[in-house]
């Protein structure tokens, strides 16, 4: 009788770790980008933005952007986009028509480039209620071209139309820690990342205030700095100091993580921005001077 249990116990002992590993390993590193198309090395790239065909990289410490193409034959290109008006690109967004928006770390302004990389102007919001001064920490451009600005000085999220005209604003909650980023879900909900308290807050589509979406995430993340959503509402949270991307369900519950801290391929060292293009996750692996692509395992 006892002997009959032994094979079952052995099978369970083998299967259990495998099952756990399968749950954790939902993404596989596929590509690392180290160079531009002329062989120049990336230096502290902090931003990435992508569509299913294009990938733009903020090669931050080199003061330029790089354009790659995404296709079934992999990632190609690496053409430099360099304009004097953008000296230190931190975070990037691609508008529906292909226009590029970049937050400049030195100017604290958003630089607008045409799809071919020409300078189109600075984003100068129009009709903003007081205070007139703004300090833009982060921003988003959604699928309709609507622009969202995280304004630290005004302690608010500003919503602008494609031309930069004011639509509405949502005040930051009074008892927050320090807001690091904002995101917009496919259903139009506005998310706010409280970096120091390690929590995500939500303002449902059209709501005029934020309320907590997640409990404090400090058990699972060290220092979250960037947040984005995929087309199904799943969330990707850059844990800068933890060297990982934490994944959360649409309800904010932790579901796993992509990569661990380190220097080797597949590992991350102080990542900057993460972008989601279909099943591809692109990470600006800042302190490893490279960009890494991960693919969701089917």
């Amino acid at each position: 009788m006892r002997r009959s249990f032994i094979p079952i116990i052995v099978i369970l002992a083998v299967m259990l770790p495998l099952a756990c590993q399968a749950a954790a390993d939902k993404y596989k590193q596929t590509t690392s980008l180290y160079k531009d198309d002329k062989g120049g090395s990336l230096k502290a790239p902090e931003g990435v933005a992508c569509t299913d065909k294009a990938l733009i990289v903020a090669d931050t410490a080199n003061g330029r952007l790089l354009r790659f193409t995404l296709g079934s034959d992999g990632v190609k290109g690496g053409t430099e986009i360099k304009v004097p008006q953008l000296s230190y690109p931190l975070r990037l967004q691609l508008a529906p028509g292909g226009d590029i928006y970049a937050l400049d770390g030195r100017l604290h302004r958003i630089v607008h480039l045409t799809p071919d990389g020409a300078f189109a102007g600075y984003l100068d919001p129009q009709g903003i209620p007081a205070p007139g001064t703004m300090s833009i920490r982060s921003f988003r451009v959604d699928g309709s071209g609507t622009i969202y600005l995280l304004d630290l000085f005004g302690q608010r999220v500003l919503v602008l139309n494609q031309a930069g005209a004011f639509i509405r604003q949502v005040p930051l909650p009074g008892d927050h820690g320090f807001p690091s980023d904002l995101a917009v879900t496919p259903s139009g909900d506005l998310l706010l990342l409280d970096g120091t308290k390690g929590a995500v807050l939500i303002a449902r589509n059209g709501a005029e205030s934020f309320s907590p979406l997640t409990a404090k995430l400090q058990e699972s993340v060290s220092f979250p700095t960037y947040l984005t959503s995929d087309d199904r509402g799943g969330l990707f949270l850059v844990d800068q100091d933890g060297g990982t991307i934490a994944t959360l369900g649409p309800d904010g519950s932790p579901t796993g993580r992509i990569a661990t801290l380190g220097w080797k391929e597949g590992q991350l060292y102080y990542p900057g921005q993460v972008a989601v293009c279909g099943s591809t996750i692109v990470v600006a692996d800042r302190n490893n001077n490279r960009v890494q692509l991960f693919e969701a395992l089917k």
Partner: protein
Amino acid sequence: MTQRLTIAIAFTLALLLLPGGIVRAEDNALKFKLKPGASGKLCLNCHNDMQETVKKPFVHTPLKAGECIGCHSPHASSHGKLLAAETGSICRLCHSSVVPADAKSVHKVVGEGSCMKCHDPHAAANKSNLVKGGNDLCFSCHKEMGDAVAKARFKHPPVAKGCLTCHDPHASTKGGFLLKSDVPGLCLGCHNATKPLFIKQHMNYPVAGSRCTSCHDPHGSDRPSILYNTVHKPVANRMCNQCHEEAGSANPLKTKRTGFELCKGCHNDMVNTAMGKNRIHWPLLAGRGCLACHNPHASRQKALIKGDLLTLCGSCHKDTIQRQEKSVTKHKPIMEGNCIACHDPHGSDNLFLVNNASTIELCGKCHDWQKHSTHPIGDKVKDPRNKNQTLQCLSCHRSHGTDYKHFIPFPTTSDLCVQCHEQFKR
């Protein structure tokens, strides 16, 4: 009618229980053949030293009543001194109200149940069985505070009178720091804000509702009016209207501008320098601006910093400070709270706001690497793990600590070395 019935039932129960209790104690004495005084007085036959102890002016009630078994088990115990339970638990049996359920602050030793750090459980020369009298007891733990109070040129009289003038020794339901009442209410108990001198000293600004401790050190200081030792120049010059609206205006306490825009009026160069860097410390641009880290009026710290840097920086960079705390090897500047030894708190062109573009040069300010290692590092030495990296100090170390010795991110040095020297991997 119901009330009368309740009283009657309670009275009957009391009558029934009281003799029952006496009977049970007598039963036990008979059943276990206990000698008279077995619950305590008998103990003194062997514990002679206790005979002297009970002669002290203040004796703990159970001991005075000869009830040693109130706290001790006579035969055996899992706790030291044959105590019937952990110290805190025993004390709480009688002193349960010491920490109110709605306490806003609790004395750490009370929370830990270390009652005997302050009280002698048997007897003492001081009221409430305190092991020392007056402020000496408090300053035996709060030594730095004791030194500061002793050295202060300008004293706050209530401090000399006793810490308990303002603080509750166990817990407070009124505010932080065990204060008997929150500030400014506590201060206004002695200081009349309507007196002409008070109003004049505060430049006619209505400060009665303001937080007095944002300017004054309640424990005394080296500056008149017990202002904190570092005072913002406009405050020292009584030029409140440099930042605030005029005292006679509708909103006298309102600042003329908000955030960094207010401070920029005088600290223009500093703000412009920080803003001209590639990377800014984001709180500088946020709603509170400079006040995220600096006190606008006065501070115990240099540069009007709100507190020591470990606490201040750690209020946002908690994970980084905790990494150092947990680290087997400690990094001296962090241990000393000297974050600015490596970081520029306002802005920098470098990652992590470090004040040197070269990690090797930054670390080299304190560490002569050739003395502890001859491993090649520098711009010409490629990192085998990553073709876009060259080897530098942070290729092997994490400056804020790791779970392992020497700030290395692996359990052993061999584990670290084989990351690159894979041919030696076992």
